[in-house]
């Protein structure tokens, strides 16, 4: 099994603060992490490799620092990593991003000398939050897809996926090659060890450029993106709601019940 995992380096959205004066995101000092959903995708890939044999390759498109995210992946089970970087790629929306990644798949297959049987993505990246790159990558490649995977296993050249749905899950299968996007797994992703971190540090991470990808740059970056971000604003979070504190439970509860029924909320 040759498995490709697409990972994005994202700011840790737990750590993002809003500047109270300018009402913009304060990104300085916010740590960059591997997109949490991608850590599940990687863990799924590594578990499948351990079960049936094969290789796990990770790719990330981003600035030079995104190599750090790839190092992290190498320390928790990925066998090889490629960084996709270049000014042509900046500002890509999901259509352009997935177009670029579809070329990356071809280029890495050539370098690794074998086609990928399975391509894994996270359900969504916690910065852009669109959940569109996985399905669009599948479309560019003409592959079947299963999204919202909660568990996945490979058997006899097919993949079985528990897909999250309203009242439980759907058990789905598809033949390989295929694209699967992962929400979570029954187990948490593994941690690196000191040894695996050292080993990861030593591994080279080749950089793929627009030239390496032989890609039509008119379909990349801002130029190649049909959607445009017109404006952004930060929603006001502080509601200044009323908080009942320091009262015995029965008094507090009675007060709240009266407030809510008077206001016809309940």
């Amino acid at each position, binding site marked *: 099994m040759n498995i490709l995992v697409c990972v994005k380096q994202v700011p840790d959205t737990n750590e993002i603060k809003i500047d109270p004066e300018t009402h913009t995101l304060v990104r300085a000092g916010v740590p960059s992490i591997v997109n949490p959903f991608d850590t599940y995708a990687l863990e799924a890939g590594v578990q499948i490799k351990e079960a049936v044999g094969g290789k796990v390759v990770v790719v990330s498109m981003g600035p030079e620092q995104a190599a750090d995210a790839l190092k992290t992946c190498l320390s928790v089970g990925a066998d090889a990593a490629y960084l996709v970087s270049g000014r042509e790629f900046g500002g890509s929306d999901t259509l352009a991003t997935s177009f670029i990644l579809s070329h990356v798949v071809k280029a890495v297959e050539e370098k690794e000398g074998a086609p990928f049987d399975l391509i894994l993505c996270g359900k969504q990246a916690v910065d852009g939050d669109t959940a569109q790159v996985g399905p669009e990558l599948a479309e560019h490649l003409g592959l079947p897809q299963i999204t919202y995977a909660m568990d996945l296993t490979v058997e006899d050249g097919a993949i079985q996926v528990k897909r999250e749905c309203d*009242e*439980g899950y759907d058990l789905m299968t598809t033949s390989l090659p295929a694209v699967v996007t992962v929400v979570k797994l029954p187990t948490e992703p593994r941690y690196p060890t000191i040894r695996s971190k050292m080993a990861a540090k030593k591994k080279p991470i080749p950089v793929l450029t627009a030239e390496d990808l032989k890609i039509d740059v008119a379909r990349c970056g801002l130029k190649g993106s049909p959607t*445009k971000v017109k404006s952004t604003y930060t929603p006001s979070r502080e509601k200044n709601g009323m908080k009942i504190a320091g009262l015995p439970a029965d008094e507090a509860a009675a007060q709240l019940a009266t407030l809510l029924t008077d206001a016809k909320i309940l």
Partner: protein
Amino acid sequence: MSEAYQNIWVFVETECGKAKNVGFELLNPARELADKKGCKLVAVVIGKDVEHVAKDAICYGADSAILVEGDEYEYYSTDAFATALFELIQKHKPETVIIGATNNGRDMGPRVSCRLKTGLTADCTALDIDEETGCIAWTRPTFGGNLMATIECPECRPQMGTVRPAVFKKAPYQADKTGEIIREDIHVAADAIRTKLVERVKEVAEAVNLEEADIIVSGGRGVGSAEGFATIRELADLLGATVGCSRAVVDAGWMPHAHQVGQSGKTVAPKVYIACGISGAIQHVAGMSGSDTIIAINKDEEAPIFEVADYGIVGNLFDVIPAFIEAYKKIKA
């Protein structure tokens, strides 16, 4: 470019012959957009035995409906639904396509927009028309709800977006409203549907319809155990509410995933959301901040959930909830 493209479409998702609410909800804001633009609002219904859904869509505000029926559309599959919607768009050339941001909508939407080489704005919570450009201004939360962005698709048609369930309310049902139902015969061969649904596993006895609930009572790690949820359930039963939970609860195995609210669970926007023993992590808040009224019960005065709550009680939920039940019963008696 845009001359040939006209009308606003709302995709009304169905499964097993039943419509998901979000399709009907979206007809309401889409009606306003269509009136502003002076164009037609068309509902697109793909499913098995779903003519009644097409009729309902007209009663909820569509001028007309396009109907595709077939056995292959009984259950959702990416290949069948993406193919059908793509062919319809190619033939009729709508100017705008709006899709509910359910799991299936977000699975199909990008497949279709990519095949059309057009833009798709994800998971929107507000829709408007940009006076200057005439484009749809799609507004959506990003960075886990920390940043709202307004997106436009100026150069490609159709302009497409997925919109969250439960953000818009359905318009009143006009039983006597009529409109044309256009049948389109599109079939997808069995072997062109590459994914197979082997089994649908219901993990929960009762149907958990968080997205359509008016009141949700949610429990977090503070509930302490699966047994602790009896207290949450008692309050929910009293209020006619649906039970939700945080991811910590699902991870601990106290509740099935179908109840989870948040970034990797359901996005909900009920009239009332009661968060009990939930700290208010951004991933949880992302899934419930659209609720009309948020009530928090937490023993930690500093818990971030109080920042988004309209009403809060600082206290032990096992004391507060029973006391609240008693007080509420007294008032209503």
